């Protein structure tokens, strides 16, 4: 248990919106270090091998680099706190319990790319996060720190808390940009990436809340310290949102690369009612299912990818033997169908059709033709949308068809 909650969830730093208490716990030291040598920040983040914690696992330093290199005097840093997918509950915890570590990280990012706007883009359904962040940001605005950052950036820096539309799709990078420009959160075609041309055409760095929360700790303690926290080649820690049929669901901060088995049986108290483990929906839940043979997988971006799945947001929805996979998949696809923004016809109709078919399969009212249609849709839909929503939805359906064909009443397909 000694590896539990070492950095972001360390009990001592759960100080809420009180800036003074945060400083007493060593807060702002990272920012002070950063102010001493702002030009080395990106290299230090690169050394620490910090990845995007919103699901993609993209190296953060490369994103920062792109935004720093982009031309333009007006740049944005956006902290993406739109978190809305089933099974993920990490960002809301950070934003409501330790808002200052997020703000400090965002200011360091602003220093690194010389941004003058820092926006906290938060899900309005999470009233607690919104309230605490507003209180916390108000304290920074009255502090001398903002002045120091502005001096280093070379222009005034403003902090803003902006409620998002509260829609799932609003968390997609380009949708964040659309939303901040005042429109409906329609995702846009990439490239150009927001780091080159984002809010009102300005270079915009969009990072997940958890990613930014880690920044101040890395700058303060050094990249080597951060790398050493991880297991093996993986670096740092990760927030795992554990839910489903386990004894003790909850948010666990563990070394990046902790095995799935340890997460469930060592930290999560084992399976509920002593049932047998069946599968895990990771991330979105829009990824390939992890099954019993994957219990030993190290939960870091690269190791999970080797099993043809993705770590995603670190959400682990555990399903026990006896629970219906189809029921869960139908529930998630129903969520995606509701969450689709509707601008790409294939996604709008595709997710709806998938949800409808799954609902029928789940309630046992389907015909063989429905199953054929389901498989057919899984073949034609991927890649047909501007954003990844439809791909994620298809991935999870396809994976359930492939891994648990007997639940659909169909013959197993060859691996």
């Amino acid at each position, binding site marked *: 248990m000694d590896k539990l909650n070492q950095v972001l969830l360390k009990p001592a730093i759960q100080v809420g919106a009180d800036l003074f208490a945060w400083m007493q716990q060593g807060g702002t030291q990272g920012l002070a270090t950063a102010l001493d040598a702002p030009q080395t920040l990106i290299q230090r983040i690169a050394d620490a091998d910090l990845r995007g914690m919103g699901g993609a696992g993209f190296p953060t330093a490369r994103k920062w680099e792109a935004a720093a290199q982009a031309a333009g005097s007006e740049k944005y840093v956006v902290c993406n706190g739109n978190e809305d997918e089933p099974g993920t509950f990490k960002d809301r915890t950070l934003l409501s319990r330790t808002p200052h570590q997020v703000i400090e990280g965002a200011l360091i990012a602003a220093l690194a790319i010389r941004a003058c706007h820092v926006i906290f883009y938060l899900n309005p359904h999470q009233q607690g996060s919104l309230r605490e962040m507003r209180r916390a940001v108000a304290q920074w605005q009255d502090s001398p720190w903002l002045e120091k950052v502005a001096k280093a950036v070379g222009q005034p820096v403003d902090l803003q808390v902006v409620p998002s539309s509260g829609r799932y799709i609003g968390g997609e990078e380009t949708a964040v940009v659309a939303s901040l420009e005042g429109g409906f959160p329609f995702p846009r075609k990439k490239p150009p990436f927001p780091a080159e041309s984002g809010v009102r055409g300005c270079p915009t760095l969009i990072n997940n809340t958890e990613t930014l929360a880690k920044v101040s700790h890395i700058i303060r303690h050094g990249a080597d310290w951060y790398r050493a926290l991880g297991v093996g080649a993986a670096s740092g820690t990760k927030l795992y949102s554990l839910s489903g*049929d386990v*004894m*003790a669901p909850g948010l666990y901060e563990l070394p990046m690369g902790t095995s799935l088995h340890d997460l469930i049986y060592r930290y999560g108290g084992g399976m*509920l*009612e002593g049932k047998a483990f069946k599968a895990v929906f990771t991330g979105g839940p829009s990824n390939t299912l992890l099954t019993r043979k994957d219990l030993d997988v190290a939960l870091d971006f690269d190791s999970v990818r080797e099993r043809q799945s993705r770590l995603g947001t670190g959400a682990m929805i555990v399903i*026990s033997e*006896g*629970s*219906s996979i*189809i*029921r869960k998949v139908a529930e998630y696809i129903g969520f995606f169908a509701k969450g689709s923004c509707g601008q790409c016809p294939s996604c709008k109709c595709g997710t709806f059709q998938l949800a409808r078919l799954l609902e029928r399969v*789940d*309630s*046992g009212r389907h015909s063989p033709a429905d199953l054929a249609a389901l498989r057919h849709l899984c073949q034609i839909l991927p890649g047909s949308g501007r954003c990844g929503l439809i791909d994620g939805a298809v991935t999870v359906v396809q994976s359930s068809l492939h891994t648990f064909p007997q639940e659909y009443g169909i013959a197993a397909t060859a691996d």
Partner: protein
Amino acid sequence: MTQATTAIPHAEALARLASGATPTLRKSGLSRELLLERYHPDHAPAAAATLQIGANAGERCHPTLAELLQANALIDGFDLAGAEQLSTDVLVIGGGGAGAAAALTAASHGADVIMACKLRLGDSNTVMAEGGIQAALGRDDSPQRHFEDTLRGGHYRADPLLVAQLASDAPDAIRWLIELGMHFDVTDAATDGGTLRYKQAGGCTQPRILSYRDYTGLEMMRVLRETVELDPAIRLLNRCPAVELLSHDDGSCAGAVLFDLEYQRFVVVSARSVILATGGCGRLHLQGFPTSNHYGATADGLVLAYRLGAKLRDLDSFQYHPTGIAFPSRLAGGLISEAARSCGAWLINGLGERFIDELAPRDVVTAAILRECADGRGIERDGRIGVFLDTPRLARQWPEGIEHHLPALAHLAAKCGIDPATEPMLVYPTLHYQNGGVVIDGEGRSTVPGLLCAGEVSGGIHGRNRLMGNALLDIIAFGRRAGQRAAEDIGKRPLRRGDIEHVYSWQRTLVQSGLPRQARAPRLYPGPGHYPLHRNERSLA
């Protein structure tokens, strides 16, 4: 049941009573409070336990009931996979009077209703209610007096708002029942104008009981059943016990899981609102008492509501009806209506004395009978102990015969092999009613959004003791209120498929608090009725 070792033999007591001497009313020597404290079963040491988990953790509860409330669920997630799906605006669980009143009212306000009965529609305690229904309709009566009587009868422990609604809804409830076609006893048309006839009830300042002979509940259920069966907006599911409620993510109620006995399969009903009308818990035979309740009274509703997080109240307070049959033992617990006492039948102990005002509130009379038996003044017949209910006294005042006024009593006596006109009946208190239940507001809403309650499953209306005639009124008054509320909420509540996530959190709580997970509830069918829900259990059975 604790029975005294000493008692007066039946023949001796009978001879004493037959001597013709007018029995004297012995002074009690104990205040009502002391009498209750020392002799009422609710105050026995064996009746006290403390709930460890759930919304009422730390509160007092009867140990037998606590065992069920803190039990594990009957089903698990896999039971829902592939189960038949139904959806409706309002799901009514329970086939008694409260359920029927709620279903009819919801349907008349435009809701689609599914009514699920564990047995069949009408198989309930409603049909066993004999005495009557209270309503302040008399010329000298008022809802205010009804309110005051009810509050006092419940030892001022009832929720005054609920009691006020009960009393003021009563006249309209009677009108509704008459419109549906229910009969009530009326006075002689030639001499008294043929108006409603009022009877006196224990604990009331005014004759306020309306009745139909002594099977009022049966008559009420007759019209309710016919009306429900004929209502096209109500889909009736007989022999479909609710085994679990469904919940949304926010903890609100989303419907229920039923088990269809005929097809031996689970049915998942999604509903905007669920009205629990599952009645009480007499069949749990608390402290070994016999019960007057029907087969289905196993506290199912309390268990389901509690697991979903609803707050309950007065879980240590039950009504023991003073005059249950004590002899013969095969009929033990069968009920002799309070109407008998209200018409003038006395209670006599083995010494030939009256020992209590027969029309005192039921808990007081019960405590007094238990005191006589405990102190050796009870009457023993073939190993059964009780006191006499002096039915021959009724026969003397009614030359036309007891069966003319109290046919159910005459019928029961015949089953006992007793002629009530010549021989007194041996009676002993019987577990009759659950005073507490789910906490509700004035419109039947529990503390869980989307979950409403009506009838005996709800608490707070009768305080810690219920008056005769208020149960039949309660089911109609609050059944209609809950039905109307549920129908009006149609636009506000989502119709989405729920899950049993609350069961999983419940199981986690069970483990964390070290309670056993093997105990399962609700009990559904006590005793001989064994209906295994799962196929593997079926093959073993």
